């Protein structure tokens, strides 16, 4: 960010505009919620898309990520990778079958027991 007073005045105007846009998106989020979309999946998708747009604006303009040094981008790329892993961890609970009986094994054992009788 340049330190020149005129540049900073321009930046302040940009911050105001972005703040206004964020407020518009907030109203949009509530409005979409009020009209009750056809499915919950659609409602979640729309709400998260708007939230991502708002979050990107905050990060790019207010946090100056639109022009940062590469060390910060490097740290953030690593964070994003680990964040994605973190978000996928709930899937392990679905994939984890330790201590549970597989339906196929159970069916095979049931059939074997039946044949023995």
């Amino acid at each position, binding site marked *: 960010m340049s330190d020149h007073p005129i540049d900073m005045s321009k930046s302040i105007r940009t*911050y*105001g505009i972005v703040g206004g846009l964020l*407020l518009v998106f907030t109203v949009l989020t509530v409005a979409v919620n009020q009209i009750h979309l056809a499915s919950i999946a659609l409602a*979640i998708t729309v709400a*998260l898309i708007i939230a991502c747009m708002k979050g990107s604006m905050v990060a790019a303009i207010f946090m100056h990520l639109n022009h940062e040094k590469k060390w910060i981008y490097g740290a953030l790329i690593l*964070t994003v990778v680990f*964040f994605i892993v973190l*978000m996928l961890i709930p899937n392990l609970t679905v994939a984890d079958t330790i201590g549970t009986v597989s339906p196929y094994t159970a069916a095979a054992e049931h059939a074997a027991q039946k044949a023995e009788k």
Partner: protein
Amino acid sequence: MEIPYTVEPRPDSGLANGKLGIWLFLASEVMLFGALFSTYILLRVGAVEWPHGELNVWLGAVNTVILICSSVTMVVAWAKLKMNDFAKGRLYIIVTAVLALVFLVNKYFEYAEHFGKGEGPWHSTFFAIYFTLTGLHGLHIIGGIVVMAYLAGPGAKLWKRNPDQFTNRVEYTGLYWHFVDLVWIFLFPVLYLL
């Protein structure tokens, strides 16, 4: 002994130490809130049914507007300091802290209403994750207010000795504050609307 690289950038990173420090801290914060968002997904996907309309959407929306406004005032405070306007910079820091306090007052009324109806964290899985997420976020708001009060109060003396270092401190506080705003931008739809 003077701490090096508080104002001038390090030759290797091209950054003042504080800037890299606050970004690494924010990276750890992403993982902290990420773990709780991940927990939310796990609980929600595993639930037979998930409650809707338990929270006051309008109060949540008002708090979103308050936090967005506070993010604008915080970044303007930094810009004013960059323009060597200490009085306005300090004023905007105070306005940001006041907005943060208003957010907390709103949250207090919201919490009080739920506790009054017996809807504490023990009431359901939804309220357990709601209080955990918003409680942790609220603690971050309190942390932000403490730092801003310091910068506008006793910490402001630094401006006379080293205005660039003071401006950098305000920038780092701003980065933290925008992150707190960013977390709320996701918390609001996830908890109040969906």
